[in-house]
């Protein structure tokens, strides 16, 4: 068995690493460029041709962003909305998941199909009707409208992922508990839930990110009430504090501020996230 260490082998390896480097650059470049841009002074922003690394880095854009009330308010609103939605979805979704994953009852299959179909529901289609509901519940222009409407995508998703997780748990613990006289509900919150902590964290994280990311509902329900706007709306409607038109420096700084916490979350929990995303998809 001769080892083929000839030219073609090394050429292949070089090509391979070139491709890897290309992919890495393509993936990361826009973000790095955003960071650099956020550090540029206003005159350097639109210099032609563009500069990459700022010649005189400045934190002026960040200072402006943190003075931007609408933006700060947006961050706060986004945090409140996303957190509330996640907690609600996890609580209600885990109840549903327990029923679907561990209990026997008639009509289980259609219910599961409905929940699965709901994860594919096109939000924009019901925008008009949802607006009517929000108005009738007196929630228009408040973050309550968002907490309510976001459940349309976080709840089915949470229920679905937790259902497949619960189904994968072994049944002996529950049976032992039942023999000891526990009710099904007790086995649920004393045994199943603690066991599910990792799945709850992952699902909660994914739900958080999708709630944070949401734009359509936030734009529709809070466009005329800046006090309730989330950060996605705030960024899209950004008016600069120091710059007058096209405050891209500040927008880039805002982009970095919005993204950093998400990135940290994603990087810390990345294994979980990838598992969660693919488990939901691959297992179907």
């Amino acid at each position, binding site marked *: 068995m001769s080892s083929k260490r000839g030219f073609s082998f090394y050429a292949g390896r070089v090509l*391979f690493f070139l491709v890897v480097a290309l992919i890495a650059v393509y*993936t990361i470049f826009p973000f790095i460029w955003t960071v650099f841009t956020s550090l540029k002074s206003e005159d350097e922003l639109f210099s032609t041709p563009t500069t990459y690394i700022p010649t005189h880095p400045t934190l002026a854009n960040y200072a402006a962003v943190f003075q931007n009330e609408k933006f700060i308010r947006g961050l706060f609103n986004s945090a409140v909305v996303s957190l509330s939605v996640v907690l609600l979805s996890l609580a209600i979704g885990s109840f549903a998941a327990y029923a679907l994953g561990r209990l026997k009852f008639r009509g289980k299959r259609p219910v599961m199909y409905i929940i699965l179909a709901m994860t594919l529901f*096109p939000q924009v289609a*019901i*925008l008009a*009707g*949802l607006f009517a509901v929000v108005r009738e519940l007196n929630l228009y222009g408040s973050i309550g409208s968002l907490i309510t409407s976001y459940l349309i995508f976080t709840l089915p998703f949470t229920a679905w992922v937790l259902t497949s997780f619960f189904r994968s748990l072994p049944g002996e613990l529950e049976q032992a508990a039942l023999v000891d006289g526990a009710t099904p509900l007790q086995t649920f919150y004393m045994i199943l839930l603690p066991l599910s902590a990792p799945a709850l964290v992952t699902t909660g994280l994914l739900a958080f990110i999708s709630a944070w990311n949401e734009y*359509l509902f936030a734009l529709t329900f809070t466009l005329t009430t800046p006090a309730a706007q989330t950060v996605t709306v705030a960024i*899209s409607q950004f008016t600069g504090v120091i710059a007058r038109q096209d405050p891209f420096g500040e927008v880039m700084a805002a982009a970095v501020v919005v993204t950093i916490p998400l990135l940290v979350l994603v990087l810390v929990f990345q294994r979980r996230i990838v598992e969660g995303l*693919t488990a939901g998809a691959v297992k179907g």
Partner: protein
Amino acid sequence: MATVASTPASKPAVRRGREQTLGGRQTRLAYLLLIPTFLILVVVAFYPLGRTFMASFTDELFAHPGAIVHNVGLDNYRQLLSVQIVALPDGKRPAEVLPDGYRESSRFTLMGGTYIIAATDRDFIQALGNTITFTVSSVVLELLLGLGVAMVVNSKFRGRGAMRTAMLIPWAIPTVVSAKIWQFMFNDSSAGVINDLLVNKLHILPESQAWLATNALQMPAIIAVDVWKTVPFMALLLLAGLQIIPGDIYEAAAVDGATGFQQFLRMTLPLLRPTILIALIFRTLDALRAFDVFAVLLGPKLRSLATYDFEKLTGSQLYGYSSAVGVFIFLMLFIFTVIYMTVLRVETE
């Protein structure tokens, strides 16, 4: 009075009512646990869907409380969906051949003759066309590139972990934020990075383009943004599918003389089919209802179905009409979802 709990193998001495058996209790508990979920889904999904459906037959206006609402039957749908193909003879202007109320959406030539695709709602037909073009292009690109990236990252190499981490970055950035970033990157002059790279650094283009303002360039630009955001995610999804495939089958195939390409075609692809299918469906549905990237990057310059619906509702304030658009979107996606569920069920049986 039977006090011994019945085991599955023995018949109970006394027949208990449905409520008292373990099965009955389970059923009751299950329904109880499902009630909050269903309540919420009714309020935020089913009821709005019904409301939208009902409103599509009216001329209701947005934020006009007190105005009288009329039932207009299928008028909204007629206005939305009336499309005709009209021949345009040489020398005639479109205005002379188009029927009343119809405007030109696009034209094409076939066998020497020019034909106009005319619609009563030209903007809708164009939004529909844009959305379909966007969906097909981005899904195909994202699948192919995602597969390529997944294959690359699947091989063992140093820094693979860092690579997979890096691939999560585009996914983690909110769509609106990445649209804003790319909006700046697509700046008209060479102040925009894209222009600078293509014109000055790589010399691929002769001069800077106004990407977001030029009709022909808008679609490629927005597809590029979506590809950037989604390919890493697709790759991760496909990677998960790839890693389930055991490595020894490749060794066996190599011993049998199969080339790398043959291995890929005959072994990898078929084994990857379920994952590809799922990725395909999710991406297609996401692309058909794309809103964020269209709203931020191109706004009124190029509409998708979603931004069109949004504009009709909040801009033109045509509540009834936008409901018809919504119903159309829903039906389109619903049909696709049904196809998906059927195919997937066939896969898993």
